[in-house]
């Protein structure tokens, strides 16, 4: 069974390559569907494969950059990427991440960083999950009451409408996202999510995707595509810095990326067959799984945390695959029926 193992030249060990492909595939599916990097999902998987932890984060970030590139290309064809919004947000994200990292270093000097980071992460994940489910509940109530707003259908939380009333120049129109607002809104929101990402040591997709929906007012599909564009840029930067520190295993990156490229197509195409709220609800479930795993880790149950994360990844990615396959089959059937009707 030697052929199932691949030699990692830098780490100097053999790793089960189908395991790497499978991790890449699952994270590709989920990342393409939700518009996030998914670093929190990769690390436990790499742990189980016996991948050296010294290389886990750097390898993960480089693979996420490549995977996000594949997903962004596909989302771009659907018109799901607002590049203008993405570029404006990069300014805030980069400055924010740097400020967050400085804050962590300050807390480190004070000697109080330890569990604080994990608990802040848990609180924010709990807030995001609550917001997502409350939003769904509110939208359901509105729908039952027959209240339909705008072209996109009923929405629960509409905080962005209040924020769009801020008219500090320069005002900017974002064509793909379909709204006009002060340029300061996306800059400040991305700065805030950047500070949090830098503070928590994460990519930030988990925070930025809901911020794009609830605070900036992007339709869910555009939020997913635009966030992936951001993840791609920050991922490439992250790959560079981690390579400079010698914390990357390139062979593993390419193996994972091969699986991720296939997964990313499935995840991205599945967004076509899912309604915005379907994406939001599944996203809320993923956030909950991430939160539970962090709490378990905090109390020393690392194995249980890995089981929760890997279980959630398997169920969610399988469900997304089903959405994609069902939707694609239905589309092909409709197409055939149309062709048959036009012949008659």
């Amino acid at each position: 069974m030697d052929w199932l193992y691949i030699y990692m030249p830098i780490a100097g060990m053999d790793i089960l390559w189908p395991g790497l492909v499978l991790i890449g595939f699952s994270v590709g599916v989920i990342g393409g569907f939700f518009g996030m990097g998914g670093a929190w999902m990769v690390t436990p998987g790499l742990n189980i494969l016996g991948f050296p932890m010294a290389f886990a984060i750097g390898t993960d970030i480089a693979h996420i950059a490549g995977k996000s590139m594949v997903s962004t290309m596909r989302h771009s064809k659907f018109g799901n990427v607002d590049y203008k919004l993405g570029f404006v947000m990069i300014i805030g994200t980069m400055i924010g991440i740097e400020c967050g990292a400085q804050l962590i270093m300050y807390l480190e000097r004070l000697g109080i960083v330890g569990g604080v980071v994990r608990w802040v992460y848990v609180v924010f994940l709990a807030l995001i999950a609550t917001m997502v489910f409350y939003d769904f509940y509110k939208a359901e109530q509105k729908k039952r009451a027959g209240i339909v707003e705008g072209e996109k259908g009923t929405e629960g939380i509409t905080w962005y409408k209040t924020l769009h009333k801020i008219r500090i120049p320069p005002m900017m129109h974002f064509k793909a996202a379909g709204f006009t607002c002060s340029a300061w809104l996306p800059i400040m929101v991305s700065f805030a999510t950047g500070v949090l990402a830098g503070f928590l040591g994460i990519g930030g997709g988990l925070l930025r995707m809901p911020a794009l929906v609830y605070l900036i007012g992007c339709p869910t599909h555009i939020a997913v595509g635009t966030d992936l564009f951001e993840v791609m840029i920050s991922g490439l930067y992250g790959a560079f810095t981690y390579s400079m520190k010698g914390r990357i295993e390139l062979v593993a990156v390419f193996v994972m990326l091969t699986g991720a490229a296939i997964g990313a197509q499935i995840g991205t195409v599945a967004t076509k067959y899912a309604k915005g709220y379907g994406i939001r609800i599944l996203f809320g479930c993923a956030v909950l799984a991430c939160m539970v795993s962090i709490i378990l880790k905090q109390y020393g149950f690392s194995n249980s945390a890995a089981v929760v994360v890997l279980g959630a990844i398997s169920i969610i990615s399988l469900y997304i695959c089903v959405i994609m396959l069902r939707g694609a089959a239905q589309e092909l059937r409709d197409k055939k029926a149309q062709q048959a009707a036009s012949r008659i």
Partner: protein
Amino acid sequence: MMHFAKKIVLGAVALVTAVPSLVWAGGGEKVDQLIIVADTRVINNAFVKYIADLYNTNTLLFAVWAVVLTAVYGAFLGFLMDFIMARTGLDLKSRKLVEH
């Protein structure tokens, strides 16, 4: 001189083998302080050997290669998958924006 080089390589191999346990023991917080050297003696593939050598000797060039190769491979896979998906007969250029 050869003896000294041998010692360094052996030390490096031992360090690489010990890395996972060291990191686990440190709760993953001491990773930045570890120095890891790739053992290029056991690599046969010329390109992989070149990359591993770069890792040991020129970190900046290694980092540039890492980013360029990741981007190029990502773009290649993107175009390849696009080519394959275009043959499935699915409409991959339009979608309805429905929230609820």
